[in-house]
């Protein structure tokens, strides 16, 4: 600017394209689960979870698989135990610490958590063809567990978590 001796002006008009209207570029998944329900005690244990995901180009298969498995375990918690118990009289959460709020421990995680990535080339989503993997890890597992409990017991539990008292 010193050399030219006058200000430089430029303007660009940038708008999103219509790719998102023309193409569906989401990540997709299908989840299957197998549970065991004790007929006397109504305790539910997850025996197996199988998930298949189409999520564009998988840049790092090892960490992607780990994130899937973490999501599966997290959703065992959602399905079977996690519950913020709110006292309706004052709105206070009565189990607001990890001593009373149960999240899954190793003993709750099934030995078999099978993760498959369906090969997918999406030329439209972005130049690398990659998609977000975070949220889809915790979509579907709780529903699959709920369906498996229904299949095992005939009881359709409409409210998570599926604790033993709801199956008695």
């Amino acid at each position, binding site marked *: 600017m010193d050399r030219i001796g006058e200000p430089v002006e430029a303007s660009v008009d940038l708008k999103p394209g219509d790719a998102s209207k023309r193409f569906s570029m989401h990540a997709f998944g299908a989840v299957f689960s197998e549970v065991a329900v*004790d007929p*006397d*005690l*109504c*305790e539910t*244990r997850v025996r197996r979870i199988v998930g298949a995901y189409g999520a564009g180009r998988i840049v790092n298969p090892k960490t992607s698989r780990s994130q899937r498995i973490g999501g599966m375990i997290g959703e065992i918690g959602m399905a*079977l*135990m996690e519950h913020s*118990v*709110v*006292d309706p*009289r004052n709105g*206070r959460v*009565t*189990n*607001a610490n990890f*001593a*009373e709020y*149960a*999240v*899954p*421990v*190793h*003993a*709750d995680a099934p030995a078999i958590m099978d993760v498959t990535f369906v090969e997918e080339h999406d030329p439209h989503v972005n130049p690398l063809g990659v998609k977000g993997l975070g949220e889809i890890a915790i979509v579907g597992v709780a529903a699959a567990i709920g369906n498996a409990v229904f299949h095992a017991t005939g009881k359709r539990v409409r409210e998570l*978590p599926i*604790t*033993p*008292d*709801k199956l*008695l």
Partner: protein
Amino acid sequence: MHPFILERPRDLSAALALRAQAGRDDAPIEYIAGGTDMMQLLQEDVRKPERLVSLAGLLDNGIDIGPQGLRLGAAATMAEVAAHPAVAGQFPVISEALLASASPQVRNQATMGGNVLQRTRCPYFRDVGYAACNKRSLGSGCAAIGGENRWNAVLGASDHCIAAHPSDLAVALVALGASVKVRGAAGERAVALEDFHRLPADTPHIETVLEPGEVIAAITVPAHPAARRSHYLKLRDRASFEFALVSPAVALDMDGPQIREARVALGGVGAKPWRVPKVEAALAGAGLDDRAALRKAAPCRRPAARCARRRSRAAGRMILPRPWIASASRSRLRWT
């Protein structure tokens, strides 16, 4: 956390004298042994003692088995007792109850005496955000009554407190007729564990028959033919590191396929470890395969229904006529 002075007396009599200076309830001076429960209570400001008297090194941690039975030193850790081969072999219900409790880290630290004396998990007791708790402050009321009380007691509760006793070990010990050796300035006395914890009634802040300054020195379990055929079953929301929704400790003296004598206690549902003599009587003479008799023996239908008013309906159902004894009997491989 409220600041406190940690006293480390040189011998037990000095510790007893220190603690005896304080009154019986809301004591400004408290003992600490393994500390796994006390530290939580301190951190949550549930307890605010001026002084903590450490019992480290002052109580014995022996585990002795003889013809009279089992003696557990008060300072023996949960892990030591659970892993002791003679305990696991001759008193399996004790070993199983311990292994169903807490986590390995906690079991390495927590002691026998402290386990029996641990405070309730009632969330309204543990959360000082609630002013009303007769255990914390007598006369302030009970926030758990009419609140979210899925975890609370349906047996032995009162209009002043519905907190449940959380120990697994104590349930197994009560089933086996264990006693507590209590030591104070005046000497030693023995108390049946069944009489050791007090029901809340109108003084829920006083939980045991311990006098100021007294400590548990040891726990004794008499030899009994049922002890060897004993089992602890723990029903809970997750598979490990969780307190019981309901937990039967069952010990059977068998005459062939028939039950000669049964000892049964329940955890997770009582204001204290809850022995059920009517169930024991109903089981005597029944066969292990006689599912009808086992179902009939399921405990406490009427008291549970009465208490279900205080509790969420779902929780009240937990100990209604579900045949948990039939379920426990499936583990009879252990019992033969």
